[in-house]
């Protein structure tokens, strides 16, 4: 496996199955973590990974897909999938499985810390979804995924200066949402 991302993408566009397999193996785990962190649900995260790669394959088949920056493209698809999911379901989306858990919790109480942690995680996710889409994606990629400004700029297709501004505004808003107002 000596291909760069560009070479891999070039091969993938010719429907080279080996390249398409390598792409999956290379990026699926990172995408899973990204999705699981945002969705808080392993089942949905798996679904997001599957759908991301399915859309990627669909695009390749139709001669579309990314011209470059494959990784940024895949994360963008995953992010859009998650955004669509939240848009469709509203803020209740994150509790799809949690509701089941709560039912079971009634019978078999979970550790208290676990419930508190879940509530706090939900609060953070809710705050993240109150940011603008670009602010959210910049925070997620820079803070949680350790992407550089250059990488983020490619992912969101904006100049580096805009990324820095979005990052700053996003953090300011998060600070307001999470620190100034306990009830957010």
């Amino acid at each position, binding site marked *: *496996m000596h291909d760069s*991302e560009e070479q891999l993408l070039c091969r993938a566009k010719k429907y080279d199955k080996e390249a398409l397999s390598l792409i999956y193996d290379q*990026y699926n785990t990172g995408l899973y973590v990204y999705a699981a962190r945002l969705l808080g649900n392993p089942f949905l995260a798996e679904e997001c990974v599957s759908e991301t790669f399915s859309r990627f394959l669909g695009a390749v088949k139709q001669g579309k897909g990314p011209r470059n920056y494959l990784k940024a493209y895949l994360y963008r698809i995953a992010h859009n999938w998650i955004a669509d999911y939240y848009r469709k379901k509203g803020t209740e989306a994150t509790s799809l499985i949690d509701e089941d858990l709560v039912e079971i919790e009634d019978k*078999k109480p979970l550790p208290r810390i676990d419930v508190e942690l879940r509530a706090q995680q939900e609060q953070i996710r809710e705050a993240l979804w109150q940011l603008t889409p670009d602010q959210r994606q910049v925070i997620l990629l820079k*803070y*949680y995924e350790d*992407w550089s*400004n250059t990488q983020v700029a490619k992912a969101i297709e904006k100049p580096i200066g805009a990324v820095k501004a979005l990052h700053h505004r996003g953090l300011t808003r998060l600070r307001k949402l999470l*620190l100034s107002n306990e009830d957010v």
Partner: protein
Amino acid sequence: MKMMDSELEKILDTIKEVPLRDPDMAENSRARYFNELKSVEFGAVSNGDNLRHTNWIQKICYLFKTRKEFVPMLTQIISAILIAATLIAGGGGATVYASQNAMPGNTLYPVKIWSEDTRLAFAQNTSNQFDLNLEYANRRVEELINMDEEGLSEIDDPAETSIRIMERLQLHIQEALRLAGEVGDPEKAMIKLQTHLQTQTRLLAQQTESADPEFEKLMLQTQMMLQERLRLIDEQLDPLYIRQQNQVQEQNQIHTETKTPNGNPATAGEGPKGPAETAQGTPGSGYGPGPDVEETPTPGGQFGPGAQHTPVEPGNNGQPSQAPLEPNNGDNKPGNGGKGGK
């Protein structure tokens, strides 16, 4: 310039770690991708995005615009005009009613799909939506079986048609699975869905034994998809699984605490070093030097990018064990070329 205070950082770190990825689920996801990859040999062009339960007006257009050859497309357009004329003339109800038994390849089949989507779009009640999805999933299985029994010769493009049916089946089940968590009694809904899937799997398995060789592969793929969903349901209904998931989370937390005696966020990495630690020009780094060179350093950078949230289980998809679960992990694979140091 440090942009984030430690208090905010501490809060945000709460979702930095994610539970361990289930190796079986990861393997299933991988199998789905590779099945889809292989399905190209079957001659299909996936168009799954067009088959969602949203944008149904666009979907009607989609149903009438997919033919590549001019004459079949013209036939479809004429059919569409005739159907529209019939609907306008007041025969809509009869047409829709008549279409309910239409099978793929039949002129009225698009009307059937359209009527299904319309009913789903107008079903406000979650429970109704759930039941409709179950019913439509059953219809798709029936259509697959019928296509195999009646022969594929009467359908213009059997491969493409059958894959579209399978995609719709998958969407109905996916929707049902999602809705099951929202109805009044999720456990009961899950059991109902489970029963339906078991029946569908059994019917397909019976049909596969005598299936047309051209069709057998798709039948097997469909069964695999159904079995995967069944497994998800089994797990959601299994209290032991829930407990295990919670134990894993607890273990993660304990692990985190022991790794960060100074109260640092739980990401002090055990994973391979990422770009920030390996300095610039790391071979295989697809994106260059990482946060260290940025004017606005990311807080995550301080803790090392090996952010190791969910180590991969050994033997998982042939990926390296204990691989860090951040996107950089792929880039750090040896020999991945790349634009390191850019």
